[in-house]
């Protein structure tokens, strides 16, 4: 509902864009997903909500149930136009198990996921890892480096997280564009090895 949008050329995609690809940025609360997306996005990051109802989004069911509150969950996302014909969307959402509907929506057609972790709070990443794996989404680990805490060696992380031998581990600073892009590039290179 922002009338400025209509005159802002950067809001819209180039006319020739044909392919919209999607990569997920996942991780536990406050691990840096929104920062990461904001750092890379060419548009101000947007937030959308999915409305959860117990009946699986049949809005009719809400009629006559006065005062019933629906649960909403936010998805943050950003956009990168990568060529005249290709646009990449980055979607981030919290890793709560109960938001199944959001995960189904997010994972449909996704190329892969960058799973951001905080090495000091590894155990908080387990539920998110379970979700990503249950949807069969290939992923790379992005160790969001906050600067103060000492980083842990990759093999220690790999063992603690019970990763496959070929799952990439990349250290990145979600506030830094080049560093964040590097993590995304590492993920895409990994995805290539799985399709060749």
């Amino acid at each position, binding site marked *: 509902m922002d009338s400025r949008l209509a005159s802002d050329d950067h809001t819209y995609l180039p006319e020739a864009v044909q*392919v919209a690809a999607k990569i997920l940025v996942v991780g536990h609360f406050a691990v840096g997903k929104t920062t990461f997306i904001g750092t890379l996005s060419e548009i101000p990051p947007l*937030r959308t*909500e999915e409305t959860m109802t117990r009946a699986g989004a049949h809005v009719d069911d809400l009629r006559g149930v006065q005062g019933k509150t629906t649960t909403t969950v936010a998805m943050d*996302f950003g956009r*990168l136009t990568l060529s005249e014909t290709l646009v*990449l969307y980055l979607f981030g959402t919290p890793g709560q198990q109960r938001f199944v509907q959001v995960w189904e929506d997010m994972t449909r057609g996704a190329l892969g996921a960058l799973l951001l972790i905080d090495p000091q709070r590894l155990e908080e990443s387990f539920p998110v890892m379970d979700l990503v794996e249950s949807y069969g989404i290939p992923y790379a680990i992005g160790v969001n480096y906050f600067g103060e805490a000492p980083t842990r060696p990759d093999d220690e992380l790999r063992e603690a997280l019970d990763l496959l031998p070929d799952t990439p581990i990349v250290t990145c600073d979600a506030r830094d564009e080049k560093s964040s892009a590097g993590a995304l590039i590492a993920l895409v290179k990994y995805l290539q090895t799985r399709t060749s």
Partner: protein
Amino acid sequence: MRAGDGGHDSVDLVRPYVITNGQDLPKGDEFELVTLVTVAAGNARQAQLDPERRALLELCSGGYLSVAEIAGHIGLPIGVIRVLLSDLAGSGQIITRNPVPAAQLTDIQVLQEVLDGLQTRFG
């Protein structure tokens, strides 16, 4: 604009099922988060529409946007936006450019294009 950061307008005062006239929310198949949408050429029926559909058409009249972006800009849940888009597509007022089918998305060509794009932009 970010939903939840203030900037509320009248739309927020109407609960989603009122806006959709109580219709079931479509599943995500037709309008995926990254399905690209724009107005159809020659669309001239905006005057009879309710404020939400009119706002949606106005937003989409500037070019292509993804379903997720439309929801973000309008400030309504994705499910509601899907209902509105479904209606407007049914009456020929919007058109979509479908995302690449999931089966092809892992295609080496798309990944290579993504990689090339990222390296060009940030390399």
